[in-house]
């Protein structure tokens, strides 16, 4: 099928500000949006710059705004986003500093991620038999959602509160904190809840649900944020 792809372009070495450029392309309806971007890069204009790696929705490199909604370019099919003769619009993620074309500076995002101590803390002696710590299937299931996160930033950069103030820790970091707070092997819930209870923590969330809609891993992000709020309010982790 034939259609137009309209891409927000910005070259920091030559452009004062970003602008849109349009390309007439042909693609199979079951091609990925990423395939379309490759068509532009490889056959129209090699200067088009984007991040991508695995191309099947796991590595999290190619989150971007597609027709105004955050998604992974490798996980959306052409037939689901554009009609014959129509226009497909591609922009970089919002709320992070723009570097070039579809590439934004991910460092502020990872800074927020690191701020919630995203690692297991457990200083108790290891099992004497040299084996795994035991955990029930129910306890494992309790934090399952958060383990699916690929740190693509689609959620955080779809959040109006994050757009309003980039100091807000953002949905992705809260999901990561949740993954450890609700892991019964972990002992640092209190420290994490303290970070998340501060000025730029979970209370910045206004439950807009954009994050849940943006998540390419179908994590119920808003629900997880709600559970962290609940834990802060009640002082109980359930």
């Amino acid at each position, binding site marked *: 099928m034939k259609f137009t792809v309209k891409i927000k372009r910005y*070259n*920091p*070495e*030559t452009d004062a500000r970003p602008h849109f450029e349009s390309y007439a392309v042909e693609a199979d309806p*079951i091609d*990925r949006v990423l395939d379309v971007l490759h068509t532009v*890069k*490889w*056959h129209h*204009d*090699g*200067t088009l*710059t*984007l*991040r*991508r*790696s*695995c*191309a*099947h*929705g*796991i*590595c*999290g*490199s190619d989150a971007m705004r597609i027709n105004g909604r955050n998604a992974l370019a490798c*996980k959306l*099919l052409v037939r689901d986003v554009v009609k014959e003769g129509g226009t497909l619009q591609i922009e970089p993620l919002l709320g992070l500093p723009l*570097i*070039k*074309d579809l*590439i934004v500076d*991910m460092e502020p995002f*990872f800074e927020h991620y*690191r701020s919630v*101590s*995203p*690692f*297991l803390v*457990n200083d108790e002696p*290891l099992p004497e038999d*040299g*084996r*795994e*710590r*035991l*955990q*029930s*299937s129910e306890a*494992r299931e309790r*934090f*399952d959602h958060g*383990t*699916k996160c*690929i*740190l693509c930033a689609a959620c955080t950069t779809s959040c109006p509160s994050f757009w309003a103030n980039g100091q807000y820790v953002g949905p992705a970091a809260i999901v990561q904190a949740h993954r*450890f707070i609700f*892991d019964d*092997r*972990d002992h640092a819930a209190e420290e994490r809840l303290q970070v998340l209870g501060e000025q730029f923590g979970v209370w910045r969330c206004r439950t807009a649900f954009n994050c849940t809609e943006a998540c390419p891993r179908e994590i119920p992000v808003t629900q997880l944020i709600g559970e962290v709020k609940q834990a802060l309010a009640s002082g109980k982790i359930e």
Partner: protein
Amino acid sequence: MVHHHKFDAIIVGAGGAGLMAALHASKAADVAVISKLYPTRSHTGTAQGGIAAALANMEEDHWEWHMYDTVKGGDYLVDQDAAEILARDAIDAIIELEHMGLPFDRTPDGRIEQRRFGGHTADYGKRPVMRACKSADRTGHMILQTLFQNCIKQKVKFFDEFFVVDLILEHGVCKGVIAQDINTGEYHVFHAKATLLASGGFGRMFKVTSNAHSLTGDPVAAAWRRGLPLEDMEFFQFHPTGIYKMGILLSEAARGEGGVFINDKGERFMERYMPTLKDLAPRDICSRCMYLEVKEGRGIGGKDYLYLDIRPESINKYKSAPGGKTVTAHELEQKLPDIIEMMRVYQGVEPMKEPVPIQPTAHYAMGGVPTDNDGRVLAEASGKLVHGLFAAGEVACVSVHGANRLGTNSLVDLVVYGRRGGRAMAEFVKGADYAPLPKDPEAAIISELERIRTQKGSEKAVKIRNEMQEVMMDNVGVFRTEAMIQTAINKVKELKERFCRVQIDDKGQRFNTDLLEAFELGCLLDLAEATAASALNRTESRGAHARDDFQQRDDANWLKHTFIRYTGAETMEPTRMGATAIDYKPVTITRFQPQERKY
């Protein structure tokens, strides 16, 4: 402007092997990890089904059985001392991952849950065994996340989105690497006592592949261009269940949970070829059987693909689930959520109601940079070492996978040999000094990259890349003959010549991925040559290397590892075609004498 850094140890690549090495080396040394991607983008994250260890949480199992399966799976080209380390160390390496926080699935008694996988058996090949420790079907993702989390905890130093373009290698001593900061385009010289390569595979030389776009083997090509040998490059694994045309991987876990292969006649054809393990035979065998089915006209609709069937009704009809149990759609959705979603997203198939079109996809390099059992890189087949250079993971050839890797053993390899490499490196730097750098070590590679950036010419990188991927897929794939491989070699030669006339569009400094993609293509062309030339040389069939003109395994002449090297003058561009020499290293055999490989 060129920047200079000094670290005890540098790790190139931030996947499972690189991060595991970093965690262990940084306990005793000043370490930096350099990666062309953010660490969590690494391809380890796409591994799905599991990581093997004889924990015996589900049923009786022993590391000796795991070792045997690894040796037999590798068609006896495995170095058995290395396989013994793999199978033994797998157990406490998996426990270490659990202690780091990895969220494994759990058994009713709270232990790590395990599932069946191709080629993993009980009692030396008698029946499939549940050995693959798992976290749903995102085990690799959980390993990568857990290792990265622990690197943050341990404050490991990272240089993210730095592209390593060259090794500083002089008189058999590695002194560090040259990298480009992708964001600025500026170059950085990393001076190190020890350098560990953990850059993964290079499956992008093939048209249909499960490999990420980034898997182009750049540091391997750098080693090649400087005359270091590459081991067993002819052994490249084609995974049987790639999504038709796209190559995206559908894990063997699908068959571990009971899925079966089906041909156009609706026949479960693996029963005919491999009566004991059937659909859980090793990958090289399944891919060859698929190829034969297609050749004999039993591809779906006469075309070049077959079906993977995971419908509960089919699994229950064949009693192919573990223990012959009855399964429901709900259980399968829980055990295989990601791959079921991939079938839906990328093929528009409803896998609980219809079978899924699949074909073999280029998946894993058994060969690579030769190392000893502590990750030290070999300069020669004789065992002589490169001072200060280490390698671990897919980039390395220990050789623990021999002629064909078993499913889940790549993840085992990452953690076991990443850890050993990291520890060995930390030990090495204690007693080592910084070898003096040559004058302007960055000059040669910068001038090559500037040539690519500024050159005017008639060729497009995309065209050369497509032609390379096509000729390698068609001629150095699941089956090979002398004539086919020669066709590929002639084509790669032509493509290397044309590569010198590539013109790119992006002349800028910042985030110039046009430039880096062209550079990656040059690297792949060199590795394609090494792969094809090694394949041409080995006149037998073994594991993943199936020669239609030499159909038998020939232990009398070929029970040995190939060491191929470039023999011309050191260069920064693709090497002169055919300037290669081949040498051999004997296979280490300890417990298991080579036998005919039947399942």
